[in-house]
């Protein structure tokens, strides 16, 4: 190493100009105030007093009442950006599906839970606004990790993450949601948290 520093930042004059002092390890030590170790009688009294204090605390909790939310009856509202079960969307005016079967969602899916089979729109059977539509659109919700990448990948906002989270079922095959299920409105609406709530 050469004696002269390479950069101006390391010169002593520059360091001094920053008003930096050398770190003194003893400087930051805080003296801990310790009471002398209690003897038998004092220690017993302290244990007794602290026990009484603890009892007071727990007794006070009775008056505060439970903070439990009685789940199936009461539900915590979800935030607007909560990522729940997916929804497929239609155009409100024409009633055509937004999904054009491009499979970008399936490509983006890290859990590989989306299956799209596209088909051509024909003049007699027009399903979507684009050239093609999704003949099969399935999401395997037992694999989905609710990351929302499908929503981000979709160029037509055809798929979004909804707010439903009550998705348990009795068999795995029931958790494969088809296009019709994803297009339909959910049976029970999940409460949504309003602004400022």
């Amino acid at each position: 190493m050469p004696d002269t520093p390479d950069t101006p930042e390391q010169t002593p004059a520059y360091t001094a100009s920053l008003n930096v002092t050398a770190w003194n390890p003893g400087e930051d030590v805080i003296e801990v105030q310790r009471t002398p170790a209690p003897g038998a009688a004092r220690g017993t009294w302290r244990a007794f007093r602290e026990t009484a204090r603890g009892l007071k605390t727990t007794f006070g909790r009775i008056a505060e009442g439970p903070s439990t939310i009685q789940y199936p009856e009461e539900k915590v509202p979800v935030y607007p950006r909560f990522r729940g079960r997916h929804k497929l969307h239609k155009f409100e005016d024409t009633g055509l599906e937004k999904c054009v079967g491009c499979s970008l969602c399936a490509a983006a899916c890290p859990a590989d839970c989306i299956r799209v089979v596209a088909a051509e729109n024909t003049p007699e059977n027009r399903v979507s606004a684009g050239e093609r539509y999704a003949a099969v659109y399935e999401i395997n919700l037992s694999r989905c990790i609710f990351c929302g990448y499908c929503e981000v990948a979709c160029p037509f906002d055809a798929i979004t993450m909804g707010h439903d989270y009550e998705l348990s079922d009795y068999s795995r095959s029931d958790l494969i949601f088809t296009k019709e299920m994803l297009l339909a409105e959910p049976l029970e609406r999940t409460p949504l948290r309003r602004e400022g709530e």
Partner: protein
Amino acid sequence: MLAVVGYYEPWWIQIVKAIVIFAVALQLVPVVLMAERKIMGRMQGRYGPNRVGPYGALQPLADILKLLTKEQFRPTTSVGFLFAAAPLISILTAVAAFAIIPFGDAQDIFGTKVGLYGVDVSIGPLYVFAFGAIAFYGIMLGGWSSGSKYSFLGAMRGAAQLISYEVSQGLALVGVIMTAQTLSLTGIVHAQGGMWYVVPQFFGFLVFLVAGFAETNRAPFDLTEADAELVGGYNTEFGGGRFASYYFAEYLNVLVISGIVTTIFLGGWMLPFGIHPPGWVDPFVVLFKMSLITFLFIWVRATLPRLRYDQLMSFGWKVLLPLATLNTLVTAIVVVAAN
């Protein structure tokens, strides 16, 4: 040995009383169980069980049904009939100890004099200690015969805990016995006509209560169970009805200790300020006082963390035992000086 003091009862009254006491004990345990879960829930900001029946009142029933219909599992390492017998020892001693709690004075019922207690033995507290000591065979044999290390460790802790705390518990009562000059529990209640022993024997009361927590293996002295370290301690390998027996015995022991504390320190069926209600009120007074002590048991369980093993030992030998001894000594001097 089990001399009945003061009066004579026909044999059939003894049998009826035995049945009644067993029935009462069986009814009280689910109540205590439910109360514990509800009160602890409230103290921890929860509701406690509230799904089965109104306000969850049928939860203990559901639990008991579940436990009784479960498979009687036993590990291949378990030892012979002891594995099956150990829970029975626990439950037997708990019910037997319950028999001597006086729920009231001797009453005239249809012209027959009946004491509202199983039996008024002339050795009172010794009877409780005797059955308390046998109860530990239930825990020790259960833990040992499971053939599991967790159970064994729990059982060994239980044994050490018994030795440490039963000494102080016994000594704590000596002061009361010296003051009352009798070992009969009804006699001790009668001796409290002027003042409940909780006042003159306050330290005896404290020591007895704390030792009672240890005797019943309740928090903060539940090292025999210690779910955090020993899975379930002595009852790790027990399931179904056998586990239910242990569970039942634990709560019945809580009731027994509550009853003994009520009888010996809180004046039994006596009411303060010289109120003398008719005889049928007595059991309710006793039950009310018992429920207060039981509440304390629950309250402490919701509050205090479990002691470390060495803390348990040093607390028993270095704090409780000297305190109990000092209490006995001072009481002895006062009693002699007063006479």
